[in-house]
C-alpha cells in the first residue's frame, strides 16, 4: 500500500506542479530579498556615517588576502591563453598577434570575470558563513537590540570594500595575466620582449580597460550583497549556515556570469 502511495506521489502532476511552484517562489523571494538588501545598502550608504575602520579591515580580508589566489589564477590563465592562441594563430602565421589577443581578452573579459569568480568562491563564502553564524547565534538580533542597524554595521563595510577591491584586484589580474603570457611568448614562442610589450599595450584602447573595470566594480557589489543576503537568511544551525554558504557562492557565480553577458552586450553596442 505504501509503495503504491509513493508511486502515485512520484508520478503525480499535482506534486510536480507544487514543487515547481515552490521552486519559483524561492527564486522570486531570493531575487526580491537581494534587491531589497541592495536598496537598503544604497540608502544607508548615502545617509549614514561610514565605518572606515571596519571597511579597511574588510578591504584587507577581501582584497589583500585574495592576492595570492588571484595571482595564481591570472598567471596561469595568461600562460594558457598565450599557448592556446599561438596554437591557433600559427595556422595563419599570425603568432605576433598573441600579445594583442592576451591583453585585450584579459582586460575586457578574463581579468574581471576570473577575479570575480575567485573572489566569489573565497570571499562570498566567507561573508555568508560569518554572517550566517552571527544569525544563528542571535548576534544579528543582539545588534538590533543595541539599536544598531545590521545593514549599516555589517553590509556597508563589506560592500564598499568589495567594490573597490574588485577594481584593484582586476587591475592586478590584468597585469599578472599579461606577465604570464609574456613568459610563454618570449621564452617559448620566441617573440621579442619589446614586441610583446609594444603590441600588448598598442592593442588596448581606453574602452577595453574601462569596460573591464566597470564590470569588476559591479561584480564586487553583487558578491558582497549576495553573500550578506544569504548570511542574513541562514537558519537551522550549522547545516543552515552550510546551505547559505553554498547558495551564496552558486548564486554569486550565476549572477556574475549573467551580468557579464549583459554588460558585454551593452558595451558591444554602445
Amino acid at each position, binding site marked *: 500500500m505504501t509503495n503504491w502511495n509513493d508511486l502515485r506521489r512520484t508520478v503525480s502532476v499535482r506534486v510536480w506542479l507544487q514543487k515547481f511552484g515552490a521552486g519559483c517562489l524561492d527564486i522570486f523571494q531570493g531575487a526580491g530579498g537581494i534587491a531589497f538588501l541592495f536598496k537598503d545598502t544604497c540608502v544607508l550608504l548615502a545617509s549614514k556615517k561610514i565605518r572606515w575602520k571596519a571597511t579597511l579591515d574588510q578591504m584587507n580580508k577581501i582584497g589583500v588576502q585574495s592576492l595570492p589566489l588571484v595571482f595564481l589564477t591570472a598567471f596561469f590563465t595568461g600562460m594558457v591563453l598565450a599557448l592556446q592562441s599561438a596554437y591557433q594563430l600559427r595556422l595563419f602565421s599570425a603568432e605576433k598577434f598573441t600579445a594583442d589577443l592576451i591583453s585585450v581578452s584579459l582586460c575586457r573579459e578574463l581579468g574581471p570575470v576570473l577575479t570575480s569568480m575567485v573572489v566569489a568562491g573565497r570571499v562570498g563564502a566567507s561573508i555568508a558563513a560569518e554572517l550566517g553564524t552571527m544569525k544563528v*547565534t*542571535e*548576534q544579528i538580533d*543582539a545588534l*538590533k*537590540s*543595541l*539599536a*544598531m542597524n545590521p545593514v549599516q554595521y555589517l553590509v556597508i563595510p563589506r560592500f564598499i570594500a568589495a567594490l573597490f577591491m574588485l577594481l584593484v584586484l582586476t587591475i592586478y589580474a590584468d597585469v599578472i595575466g599579461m606577465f604570464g603570457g609574456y613568459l610563454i611568448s618570449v621564452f617559448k614562442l620566441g617573440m621579442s620582449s619589446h614586441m610583446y610589450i609594444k603590441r600588448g599595450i598598442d592593442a588596448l584602447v581606453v574602452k577595453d580597460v574601462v569596460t573591464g573595470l566597470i564590470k569588476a566594480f559591479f561584480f564586487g557589489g553583487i558578491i558582497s550583497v549576495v553573500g550578506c543576503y544569504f548570511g542574513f537568511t541562514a537558519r537551522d544551525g550549522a547545516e543552515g549556515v552550510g546551505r547559505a554558504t553554498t547558495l551564496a557562492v552558486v548564486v554569486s557565480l550565476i549572477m556574475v556570469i549573467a551580468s557579464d553577458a549583459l554588460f558585454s552586450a551593452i558595451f558591444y553596442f554602445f
Partner: protein
Amino acid sequence: MIQIQGIHKWFGTHHVLKGVDLTIMEGETIVIIGRSGCGKSVLLKHIMAILEPDEGDIRIDGRSMFSMKQEEQDQFRLKLGMLFQGAALFDSLTVLENVGFSLLEHTKLSEETVTQRVLEKLRMVGLAGVENLMPASLSGGMKKRVGLARAICNEPKIILYDEPTTGLDPINADVINELILRMQKQLKVVSIVVTHDMTSAYKVADRIAMLYEGRIIGIGTPDEIRNSPDPIIQQFITGSARGPITDKQQKETESL
C-alpha cells in the same frame, strides 16, 4: 508599564502566537514559563521589536515601537536591554567592546569614560579582569554575565532575559538568579524573564505567566501558580511526563 495586546505571529503556516495579552507593571519581575518551542522567545523578541507581529500591538509607556520610524525606534530601544539565550556576544570584539558597544556607538563619551562604565558594569555582575578577553575564551556562565553587563550598560528601564539559566550548572544558574534579583533591587527596572526552569522562576518572579499553545493560560504570584487547579499548569510545574500536555501531543502524533 508594558501592555501586550492580542499578539499573533505566523511563521509560514505555523501559528506560533495566537493572541497573547499581558500587562506588566512598573518595577515588576514577571517570569514567562512554557515548553520549549511554545513561542516564549518569539514573544520576547516582539517586546524588543526585533520581530513584528502579524496582528496586535505592544505599548511601552503608552507608545508602540512598531509605529515608530527606524531612527526613533532605535532611540527608544536603548531603554530596553536584552540578555540572549546563548549570550550572543560578538565574536570579533573583546569583552570591553561588547559591553560598551552601545556607549561607543550611540554616545560621544570618551574612551576612558566608556572603559570606566564597562568595568563598573562588569563588577556589578561579579566579573573583573576579563575586559580584554575574547568571548571564545569565556565559560558559559561568564558569557551570560558579560551578556547581562552588556544589557545593563546603557542603564535600561526594562531588562529582558531569554532563558538566563539554560545550559548552566546549578551553582552558576543560581548566581544568575541572584544577579537578576540584584539588578531588580539596584536598578529598579522592569524585568521579563523567559524560562522553563521552575527553580529560577519561583526565585525571581513577582508574577509568573504560563504560555501554552500561543496563549497565556494562567498568571499569578509564584504561590498562586504553585497551587493552580489547572492540570496543564500543574503538569508543567511538576515536570510530570503524564498529563494533559503530553496526552494531547500523543494524540496529535498518532493522527499524523
